[in-house]
């Protein structure tokens, strides 16, 4: 047995030393001496496997105890472990989630909108109930043995087509019962059209709700503007969002922001959202053309990585004070995370997860909607472009040379395919910025879990 060192990553943060074994997905907290020995093994070309390590321990007996613990980890398959030699067979097509773009229209004009301010570079249009019902039928028919199905109402702004959303939920719920399935509904909204009646329906029927708000008033209103460019969007939506969340009764939601080059101090926006009363928060890096003034560029990266550290400390401080919040990207599930099949399928775009345009056309995901080269088929005819669907199935980390040697591969699953295509022109090469940010978020998450679990164990 030889050590596979390529995917072993070591780092220290806030006085914690961590080791990630990328091939097995294992994450260890170690003391300083152990970290030093692991780094020595990684850097030493003469230590190829357990026998070489045992030889080293004979020469340096003071390392015996640590060395034997490392050898035990190797035996358990949790350090210097080997990767799969080949991918499991290509998965069959089982559609389990649909994103319904119920409105290709929006009542805001956000500067960075990837949906081209709501119309997805086409006509402003709303999805008819007939198309939405056909999408429900398509999902049920193509979900095979899967019980739990997901449907997410997106846009544009889905509240601009509220009647169709409401009637689709009713129809899907009734159909699900007939076929022994259950639906989890999600809606993403900018909040402008929320009313107490709509909020009640969302809180009763939606498994999750994503509320678009970027943080501090000046940050939000700079990029999220009304059609007339007058008034404060922040002032309109905050009371509505807080009312909705107050009545959510523990159900899932996210106050979800986007950060841009204008607010590289985005931890302050997360803090602001928490101060307002939101405790489930997500803050995503903007996606878009690198030439736009709001775009995140390479020169911003060091500042962004520092900001994630600042956010991690803010997260800890508030947890310790007894008033914590949940940050989406710091929630990595280490004990009961997804299986390797899921980590290879990633988001499942193109064969498990599809987006439906108002016309009824199917796309690999919401980010491809409106791109004629990426039409997969229709809700009536199903997936017709099998070649395109297969290309998404094959676009997993084992087929991407950069990912194969990366410690983070089974946590990020190769990143967002659309971002990779947009930034690098091919799904086989990665969006380097997104990659670096994802790795930093993972490090912060592992660090936070190390701190959180410190008191639960007597060892270390």
């Amino acid at each position, binding site marked *: 047995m030889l050590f596979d060192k390529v995917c072993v990553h070591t780092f220290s943060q806030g006085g914690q030393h961590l080791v990630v074994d990328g091939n097995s997905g*294992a*994450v260890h*907290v*170690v003391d300083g*001496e*152990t970290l030093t020995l692991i780094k020595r093994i990684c850097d030493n070309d003469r230590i190829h496997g357990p026998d070489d390590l045992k030889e080293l321990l004979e020469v340096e007996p003071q390392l015996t*105890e640590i060395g034997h*613990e*490392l050898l*035990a*980890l190797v035996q*358990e*398959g*949790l350090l210097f*472990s080997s990767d*799969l030699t080949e991918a*499991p067979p290509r998965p069959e097509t089982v559609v*389990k*989630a649909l*994103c319904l773009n119920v409105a290709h229209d929006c009542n805001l004009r956000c500067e960075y909108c990837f949906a081209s301010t709501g119309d997805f570079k086409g006509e402003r249009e709303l999805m008819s109930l007939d198309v939405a019902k056909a999408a429900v039928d398509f999902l049920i028919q193509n979900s095979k043995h*899967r019980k*739990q199905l*997901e449907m*997410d109402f*997106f846009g544009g702004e889905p509240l601009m087509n509220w009647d169709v959303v409401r009637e689709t939920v009713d129809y899907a719920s009734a159909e699900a019962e007939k076929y022994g399935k259950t639906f989890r509904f999600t809606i993403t909204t900018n909040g402008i059209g929320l009313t107490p009646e709509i909020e009640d329906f969302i809180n009763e029927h939606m498994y*999750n709700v994503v509320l678009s708000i970027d943080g501090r008033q000046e940050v939000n209103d700079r990029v999220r503007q009304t059609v007339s460019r007058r008034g404060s969007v922040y002032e309109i939506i905050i009371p509505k969002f807080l009312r909705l969340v107050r009545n959510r009764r523990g159900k899932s939601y*996210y106050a979800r922001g986007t950060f841009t080059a204008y607010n590289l101090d985005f931890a302050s926006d997360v803090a602001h959202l928490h101060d307002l009363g939101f405790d489930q928060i*997500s803050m995503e890096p903007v996606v878009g053309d690198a030439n736009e003034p709001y775009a995140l560029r390479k020169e911003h990266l060091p500042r962004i990585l520092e900001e994630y550290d600042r956010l991690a400390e803010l997260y800890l401080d508030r947890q310790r004070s007894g008033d914590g919040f949940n940050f*989406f990207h710091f929630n*990595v*599930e280490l*004990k*009961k*995370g*997804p*299986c390797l*099949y*899921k*980590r290879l399928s*990633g*988001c*499942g*775009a193109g064969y498990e*997860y599809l987006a439906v345009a108002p016309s009824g056309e199917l796309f690999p*995901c919401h980010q491809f909607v409106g791109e004629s080269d990426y039409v997969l088929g229709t809700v009536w005819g199903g997936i017709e472009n099998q070649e395109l669907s297969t290309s998404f199935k094959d676009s997993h980390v084992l087929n991407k040379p950069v990912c194969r040697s990366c410690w983070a591969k*089974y*946590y*990020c*699953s*190769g990143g*967002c*395919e659309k*971002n990779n295509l947009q930034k690098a022109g091919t799904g086989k090469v990665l969006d380097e910025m*997104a990659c670096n940010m*994802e790795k930093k978020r*993972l490090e912060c998450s*592992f660090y936070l879990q190390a701190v959180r*679990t410190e008191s639960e164990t007597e*060892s*270390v």
Partner: protein
Amino acid sequence: MQMKKKHIRTLSGTALKETLKTGGCGECQTSCQSACKTSCTVGNQACEK
């Protein structure tokens, strides 16, 4: 059976390869349905088995 260790505390569960024997049911949440919509965050999902 894992050896009790003095210098190392493991935060994660069993090696991922082990999940090839039991996983693949597909009942877990689709990652893009959660909150991101713009980045792949599979590690955030929980196994629902």
